């Protein structure tokens, strides 16, 4: 944590460019906007201009049954906090804007996109990541079914699918085939594992019922 604390002290003056960028509708325009006049100047103004919120804040996250204290900037997303600060790299960043589901975690049992959630907004709520479903590396039944059915290939989307599937089964223990599809419809898999993902969720639902 110490090393990160220093990082943040140094970064303090950088204020909340992310908030600014999100405000104008895109989290990632830096590269396209630079040096093109207006946008470039606006981005620069956002860095030197009056901040809306600034500086690190000490927060406590309740993650996978433990409490983790860390200093985050207001703009730090839950996904960044997990991946870059807490070494919980199971949740993936794929699109960074709510279009793929790879960053899906559970907050109080409900599926949430960690890339669209600010770490400072999580508060006392309980966050469960894909690592949290398998304490000490022991896979839960859904994870076991993913392996058995081969519901993963490159596996980069897989943590997101596992979490979406888990969220579905917790809210709807008897999903129909259509509901299973709907439950993971916010998740993208480029390798094309969908048919086996459906099987894995179905098998697990059956198992949990019996």
């Amino acid at each position, binding site marked *: 944590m110490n090393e990160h604390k220093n990082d943040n002290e*140094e970064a303090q003056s*950088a204020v909340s460019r992310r908030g600014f960028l999100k405000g104008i509708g895109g989290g990632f325009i830096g*590269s396209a906007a630079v*040096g093109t006049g207006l946008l470039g100047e606006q981005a620069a103004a956002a860095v030197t201009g009056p901040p809306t919120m600034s500086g690190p804040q000490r927060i406590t996250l309740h993650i996978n049954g433990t409490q983790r204290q860390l200093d985050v900037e207001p703009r730090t997303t839950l996904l960044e906090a997990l*991946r870059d600060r807490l070494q919980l790299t199971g949740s993936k960043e794929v699109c960074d804007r709510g279009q793929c589901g790879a960053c899906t975690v559970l907050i109080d049992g409900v599926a949430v996109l960690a890339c669209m959630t600010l770490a400072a907004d999580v508060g006392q709520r309980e966050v469960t990541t894909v690592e949290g479903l398998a304490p000490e590396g022991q896979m839960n039944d859904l994870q076991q079914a993913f392996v058995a059915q081969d519901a993963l*290939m490159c596996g980069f989307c897989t943590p997101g699918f*596992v979490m979406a599937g888990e969220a579905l089964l917790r809210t709807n223990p008897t999903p129909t085939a259509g509901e299973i*599809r709907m439950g993971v419809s916010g998740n993208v898999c480029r390798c094309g594992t969908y048919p*086996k993902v459906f099987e894995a969720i179905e098998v697990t639902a059956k198992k949990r019922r019996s």
Partner: protein
Amino acid sequence: MASWKPYDEMKVMGQRQPRLDGPEKVTGRARYTYDQRPPGMLYGVLLTSPHAAARVVAIDADRARALPGVRAVLTDIHPTGNVRFAGEYVAAVAAVNKQVALDAVALIEVNWQTRAHVVTLWEAIDEDAPRVFADKDNVTESERGDGDVDAGFSQAETIVEAEFFTQVQTHSPLETHGSVAAWDGDELTVWDSTQAVHGVREGLAKALEMPANKVRVICHHMGGGFGAKLGPGAYSVIAAKLARQAGAPVQLMLSRKDQHLSVGNRPDSWQQLKLGATKDGQFTAFECTTWGSGGIGGRGGVSQPYVYSFPAWKQQHHDVATNTGGARAFRAPGRPQACFAMEQIIDEMAWKLGLDPLDVRLRNDGNETRHEQWRIGAERIDWPRWRRREPGAGAGPIKRGVGMGASIWFTGGRGTKAQMDILSDGTVEVRCGTQDLGTGTRTLVAAVAAEELGLPIAAINARIGDSDFPYSGGSGGSTTAPSVAPAIKNTAEKAKAELAIVVARHLGVAADTLSFVDGTVRVASGQTLSWREACAMLGANAVSVQGEWQEGLSGSNVAGCQFAEVEVDTETGRISVIKVVAVADCGLIVDRLTTESQVNGAVIQGISYALLEERIMDSETGRMVNADFENYKVLGALETPEIDVILYDQPERGVIGIGEPPTIPTSAAVANAVYHAIGVRLRDLPMTPDKVLRALEGA
């Protein structure tokens, strides 16, 4: 020539084996390049060109350098300063976290001198179009052919001419391209999301002008490539340079936008086809004029004439350069485009002649394997029932139809080396410098080793994805399985022979009286040792051998065919694929479960190509307007049909690669099914609802 043991004696190969890295991946423990966090790691971000054609006059990065938290800034990463597409890398920053790096990049001022650009094939072929390369035409022509085309067409009783278009598709692997670079003195370690650890090592050494034996490239897990990650990336070199300047490891992963723009795509195509046939459906000649734009890469090949036999054919092709990111190999380069057009014109010919489209294909298909596959596929989709339905005949606004398409892919194996250690405690480690793209290579390595040693797959520690391991080539062209499996078998065979010598000496028997079965070592005389007991005889002298690829264990020329059933809503224009029957040539199957997944994935990508994906360029700004996952659509769970995967076993042909072939015919089969459903042909990919409605209006 080397050979496999009889298929029915195999205990591990050919079974349904869950992939070995599954548990790591489903629990989030698998560390991809994106997940590497060496101590003190900095985050790199690229500044890319917003202009499609421009010269960098000056870069002022003083404000970026002054920003607290910034540790390295590079402003000389573009080789010439002459930018040819929006998205080229012009500067890079490494900082203590990603936000600071993004802030710093926004502070870099670039003075640009822009030029006129051209970003679409249509504009680029215009005589007055701006040139992408000052010293070269945008269009490069070439011609291929065989036989007397004019004579062929004069023998034809029917001629069909038609025009087809396919779009630019980006690879869109979920893990973007990227590297983590860490220096230790003059030695460099790079974690890279790559399809070729050895290739990246060589490329990096060259680019950094350092000896290759001081570079190590690691890729334990990677989040997809599909051809886009075969070569060493400029981003890897930049990461290494940033790391050197900062004196700390640097992670540089491309953004989703960078990924769409700068690291490859499947070129588009414009194809004018002409097909001649006798009235009983025998082809007499084929001719086509094709264009394809591979961006600044220039090459936009279209592999006509695809699959079928023509007594005479001619292709006049035009590679077209545009101010867009260069094309790269993408899952069967040049084939899906060609297949989409060819299978449709054949279909058109068949319906025009009043013949069964399947019969016309069988008559002109010279591939024996596929004849059998056509039969199997037709039965599974119930083609005899569907063939009786006239195109567009269904009642009501929602119509169904069935279509088909065929594929061939060369694949084949090549040089790979591997190393195996058998230790005295009975553990086995096999090392090979190949990599697992999500195809299941790690599992394949273990399965082949286990089969040869008579052990369960869990007994093998298969280590891959490291350039410190024996050489294996890049994972492209569906060559990985046929390259790696023979090398592992050969290595395991040698290791087993060495172990046998030691055990035989201990027992005072001849080595050739030993056999390795079911985790035991059996002596012809009747004595049986457990594997562990046998290995204990090694004492301090572990077995450590190297082996390599051998002739006779792998095959090539992978045939396949697919049938698709679709439903078209003629009121909304929406196409839903209901079912795909995919008959895939599999040679000797190493792992039935992961092979099935490969076919599923290929079909799904094919449907995605058929219905959704398209890079859209804005001519005015020269930029891609949908460089994300919201507007660049990739097929999702709701659009996934039932996929009936039929693995067509031919163990006698040895191990073959299956990654590419099954993605080729899907879009063609879907397009033919759409025609069968609505009686109107869609000649332009992707087949979006607006195009369906327009086609119906024009009908």
